[in-house]
Structure formats: C-alpha cells, structure tokens
C-alpha cells in the first residue's frame, strides 16, 4: 500500500486517479494534486500517465515490428521474424475473412489495433503497486512532489479517454469510407430508408424520421460499444486486481489467500486481454466492411 494512513477507500481512489496535467480554474497550467482539482480542470487537461504508456507501448510495438520488417528475409525466418510474421498473418487472415472490400489500409490498421491494445491491456498484469510506487518515488525525489498526490494509472485502457479516442478514430474512418463508397445520398438513404420503407410517398415521409432515429442510434452505438466494451472489461479487471492487492494488508492468512487469487485472476486475465484486443480488432474490421457495403436496391 502506498501511504501510511490510507484507508481501503482512499487506496482504491488513489489507484483510479490519473496523473492529470491541465488548466486550473484560475488560468495557470499544472499537475492536479487531488481528484477534485482534476475534475475542476474539465476538458482542458491531459492524462499524462495514459498518454505516456500508450505512446510508449505503441512506439515499442512499432519499433520492434519495424526492426523485423527492415531485415525481413524471404528465406528461413529467425525466431523473432517468425513471431512477427505469425502476428501479421493473423491480422491479415482476420481482415481477409471479414472484410470484403479492397483497401490496403485496413490490414495494417487491424494489426496496429490488435498489438497495441494487447500491449496496453497487458500492463494490467504488472502488479498494481509497482509502477505507481516507482512513479511516486520519482515524483517525490526528482520533481519534488508530495508523494500522496502522485497519481499513476498504468493501464491506458482503463481510462475511457483512451478507448474512446481509438473508437472515435475508427468511427471517423467508417464515416469517411461510408461517404466515399456510398456517396452523401447513399449514406443518407442508408440512414433514413431502413428498416421501414413503403411505396406510398406519404407513408415513406412518415417513416424517414423514425428510420433515422433507429439508424442513428445504431450508428452511434458502434463506437460507444466498441470503446465501452474494452474500457469496462479492463476497468473491472483492474479493479479486481486492486481489491486483491488490498488483501495483502490483511494479515498472513488473507495475504496468502490473496496471493493465490492474484495468480488465478492474472492467468484468467491473460485470456481477457487477448480476447479484448481481438474483439476490438474484429469489430473494427466489421465496421469497415459495413462502411464498404453498398446497399442493394429497394
């Protein structure tokens, strides 16, 4: 536990608070020292920990794959190249299986999504206190901060900003390709002429707003469900890790029991982080495929 006189509630809250850099209500910029200050900053703030880890992991992924790509041989591949090729083929196979259009951009995007989200989620497997304690230490001794106010959330996908950000980019791309493939009129008709349609002009006019309501909700639900699914799963997993970590402060017996729980949950979580990364990738591919589908005539 990080802190001498922390209650369980404070411990959990501390773990769920991002390190926020933003604009204080009085106009100056700085790191928020409490959750309330972070809230007051409103939109003009940035989660330093989320950005740091997601960029760090993304760069690590791209660096590794770029390194392999530069030396990729068509001959007998080495171990690392073999692994990278396996991942690439996996992403390529998923795209080929679900995406019927022709777009060279989709497969690299699927690969990026899968590996990046997998790495981000994998941060969840690092014991919950290690990195925050390290951050507290650095914050205290390098930047001279109050150790109680150094917040550090290491799993970017437990920050809705991260998952919404990715889902938003995917959503923008689906909109872009929908317009590109179907045209403004085609896209608009897709939103307004389904699922109810009639040959009667008056009836059709009545149907248009109803259709639009339904289709618009369906459209918006895509990025929302995409991001909330990832966020919810990872947040819940992180929460369980934090709760298990609390058990270590409860004496020998509970601590050992907690150790077993931790091990079991971590092993189970390996499945979840992979599955969530895979689901995010596949849904992205499916949304792209939907954007590419030109509706049949009615």
């Amino acid at each position, binding site marked *: 536990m990080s802190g001498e006189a922390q209650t369980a509630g404070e411990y959990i809250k501390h773990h769920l608070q991002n390190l926020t850099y933003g604009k204080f209500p009085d106009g100056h910029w700085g790191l928020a020292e409490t959750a309330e200050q972070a809230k007051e900053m409103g939109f003009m*703030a940035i989660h330093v920990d989320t*950005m740091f880890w997601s960029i760090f992991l993304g760069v690590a992924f*791209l660096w590794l794959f770029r390194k392999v*790509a530069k030396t990729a041989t068509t001959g007998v591949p080495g171990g690392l190249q073999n692994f990278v090729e396996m991942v*690439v083929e996996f992403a390529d196979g998923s795209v080929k299986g679900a995406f019927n259009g022709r777009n060279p951009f989709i497969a690299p995007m699927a*690969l990026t999504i899968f590996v990046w989200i997998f790495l981000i989620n994998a941060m969840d497997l690092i014991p919950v206190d290690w990195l925050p304690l390290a951050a507290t230490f650095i914050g205290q001794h390098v930047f001279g901060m109050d150790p109680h106010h150094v917040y550090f959330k290491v799993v970017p996908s437990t920050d809705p900003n991260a998952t919404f950000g990715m889902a938003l980019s995917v959503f923008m791309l689906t909109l872009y390709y929908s317009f590109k493939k179907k045209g403004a009129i085609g896209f608009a008709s897709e939103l307004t002429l389904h699922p109810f349609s009639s040959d009667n002009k008056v009836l059709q006019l009545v149907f248009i707003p109803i259709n639009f309501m339904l289709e618009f909700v369906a459209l918006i639900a895509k990025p929302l469900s995409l991001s909330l699914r990832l966020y919810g799963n990872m947040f819940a997993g992180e929460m369980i890790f934090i709760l298990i970590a609390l058990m270590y402060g409860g004496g020998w017996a509970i601590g050992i029991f907690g150790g077993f729980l931790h091990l079991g949950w971590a092993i189970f979580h390996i499945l979840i982080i992979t599955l969530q990364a895979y689901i995010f990738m596949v849904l992205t591919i499916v949304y792209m495929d939907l954007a590419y589908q030109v509706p049949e005539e009615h």
Partner: protein
Amino acid sequence: MNINLTLIGQSITFAVFVWFCYAYVWPPLINALTERKKQIADGLAAAERGQHEQELAEKKATERLKDAKGQASEILAQAQKRATEIVDEAKDDARTEAERIKSGADAEIEQEVNRAREHLRQEVVTLAMAGAEKVLKREVDATAHASTLNDLAAQLK
C-alpha cells in the same frame, strides 16, 4: 474518469501509429510473406517437374538399353554368320588347294612313272642286246637290227 484532451491525444496517437504501421511496417513484412509463399510454391512445382523429368529419363534410359541390347545381339549374330562364312570359305579354299596339290602330285607321279618306264625300256633294250649278244655269241649289228629291237622294246608296255 474525466473526459478531456486525452481523448483527442489518443485519437491523434492512434492515427499516427496506424499510419506508421501502414507505411513502414506492413509492406515489407507482407511482401516477404507473399514472396516466400511464391518461392515455396515454385519450389514445389520445380520438384514435381524434376520428378516427372526423372521418370521420363528413366523411361528413355530403359528404351536405350533395350535398343542397345537388340543391336548387340544383331551384331553378334552377324559376326557369327560371318565367322561361319569365313570358315566355309577357308574350307573351300583348302579343298581346292588340296585338289591342286594332289593333281600336281599326280602329274609328277605320272611323269616319274613315264620316266621310269622309259628308263626301264632303255634298260630292257640294253639287256636284250646283251642277252642277244650272249645268245648269238656274236656281234650283232645294232644299227641293222635296231628297228626290230625297238619294236620289241615297244611291246614292253
């Protein structure tokens, strides 16, 4: 869990990563993969072709072997035939030669016989003369009775 600028930051980060992957990571890897797939397919095709060619070559080789065997036996038969011919010729030659030698020898023997007979005839004449001389106890004019004696001698044949 405040929604703030992180959202936009993440969107931009995501876009940059995807672009980098699209531009620098994906093409070399997927090219290597397709290239290797092609190489493997080519290799398999080449192996199949090689096997096929080997089969053909084997067939051709057995054919050649069969031809060669046929030719060899033909040559052998010819040689045998020629050999018997040569032997026959030699036999003929030998026979004619033997005939020739025999006829030569015959002629010589005849000559010899004639010569001996002539000689004997002379001897007989001389003997007759000597005998007649002895019988007549006188000198007989050899020239006067020559024809008579010669007739006598001629009767000796």
